[in-house]
C-alpha cells in the first residue's frame, strides 16, 4: 500500500516535471565596457566580453561577430559556453575573441613597391563598425523541426567599432646605408688582403736580393 503511494507520488512528480520543463526558458546577458577600440594596422588584438544569466535555467551561449567584422576575426574562444543559472552580472563569465587588423593605408615605397617605404597618414581613419553578438542556443531547437510554425532564437548584442590607426613614419634609409657599409667593408677586406700579398712579395724580393 505504502509502495503504491510512493509509486503514485513519483509518477505524479514525473508528470509534473514533464509538464513544467518545456515551459522553462533560458536567458542570456552581456556586459561590456567598451564600444570602440583603436588598433594600429596589421596588429593582433584580443577583446573580452562578459556573459551572464540571471535567470533560473542554465543556458548555452555562443559569441559571434557581425558580418562587417568577421573578416578580421583570428580566433574566438569557446565555441559554446555554458552559463549556470542565477549568474548575476557581477559574476559574469569572460569570453575572449581575437582579431587582426588588416593593412589598409597606402604606403609610398621607393623601391620594388615594398622597400624604402614611408607613410604620411593623410587619409581619414578607417572604421569597421559592427557588433558582438551572444546567441543563446536552445537544446529544444533541434527537436522542434517539422512541427509547423516558427522556431525562435534569442541573442543580445553590444556595438563594437574597430578603428584602424595609421602609424606615420618617414622613409627609412637604413637598408641603403647597410648595403653601402657592406660594400665598403668587402672592399676594405679585399684591399687589406692585397696589401698583405704585396708586402709578402716585397719581403720575398728583399730576401732574394740579399742572397
Amino acid at each position: 500500500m505504502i509502495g503504491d503511494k510512493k509509486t503514485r507520488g513519483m509518477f505524479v512528480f514525473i508528470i509534473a516535471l514533464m509538464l513544467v520543463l518545456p515551459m522553462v526558458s533560458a536567458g542570456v546577458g552581456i556586459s561590456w565596457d567598451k564600444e570602440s577600440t583603436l588598433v594600429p594596422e596589421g596588429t593582433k588584438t584580443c577583446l573580452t566580453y562578459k556573459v551572464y544569466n540571471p535567470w533560473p535555467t542554465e543556458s548555452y551561449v555562443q559569441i559571434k561577430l557581425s558580418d562587417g567584422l568577421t573578416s578580421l576575426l583570428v580566433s574566438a574562444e569557446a565555441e559554446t559556453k555554458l552559463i549556470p543559472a542565477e549568474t548575476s552580472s557581477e559574476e559574469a563569465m569572460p569570453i575572449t575573441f581575437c582579431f587582426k587588423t588588416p593593412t589598409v593605408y597606402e604606403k609610398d615605397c621607393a623601391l620594388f613597391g615594398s622597400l624604402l617605404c614611408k607613410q604620411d597618414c593623410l587619409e581619414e581613419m578607417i572604421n569597421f563598425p559592427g557588433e558582438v553578438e551572444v546567441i543563446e542556443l536552445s537544446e529544444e531547437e533541434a527537436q522542434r523541426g517539422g512541427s509547423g510554425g516558427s522556431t525562435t532564437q534569442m541573442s543580445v548584442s553590444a556595438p563594437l567599432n574597430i578603428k584602424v590607426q595609421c602609424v606615420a613614419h618617414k622613409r627609412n634609409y637604413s637598408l641603403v646605408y647597410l648595403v653601402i657599409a657592406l660594400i665598403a667593408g668587402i672592399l676594405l677586406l679585399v684591399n687589406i688582403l692585397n696589401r698583405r700579398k704585396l708586402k709578402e712579395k716585397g719581403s720575398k724580393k728583399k730576401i732574394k736580393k740579399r742572397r
Partner: protein
Amino acid sequence: MVKKLNLLNLLLVFILCICIILIFLENGFFIQGFAVEGDVYSNVTISKYLSIEFSPELSNGIVFGNVTFLPVISINASENYGGSSDSSNYYIQVSSDGNTAVDFCINANVALTNQYLDVLGLDNETYSCSNESNLSLPSLSGETPLTLGFVKCGESIAPSSNNYYRFWLDIPAAQPSGDYNNTLSFKGLSSGVSC
C-alpha cells in the same frame, strides 16, 4: 702602390663609419629624452549590461496549428491571446539585473518552407509588438510582415519590463500542403543602437 691602397682603405673606413653612424641616427638610437613630469590620471570606466529571457511560450516556438480550409487571413498564433485577460503569452523579459534600457530587433532566417521546399512568402507571416499586452495590444492593425534583415520592434524597454508580441499568418488558396517551418531571431541591444 701601397700608398694608394692606404688612401683607399682610409676612405673605405670613413664610409663604413659614416654608414654605421647614419644607421644609428636613422633608427633613433642616440636620441634619448628624459622628461620629468608629474601626471595625475583621470579615469572612468562606463559599463553597460543587459539580459533578456523568452517567455516559455515564445521559447517553445510560434505555432499556427493545423489549417484545413484555404485561403485564410490573419490566423492567430496559438498563444496570441493565451495570457491572463487575453494578453499575449509571447513576450521577452528584460532582467532587473541590467543597467540599460533595451531595444529589440526581429528577423526571419527564411520564409516558411516545407519539407518539399514549397515556400509560403515572408509577406504572409506578420507580427506586432507592444510594451504592454491586453486584448487589443499588440494590435493586428499594427501588423508588419517579417523580413530577412533585422527590424526594430520594441524600443527602450526598461529593466524588469516586458516586450510583447503577436503573430499572424495568411495562407493563399493555392498553397501546397505540408509542415512549414522557419526560425525567427530576436536580438536585444542597448537602447538607441541600430539593428
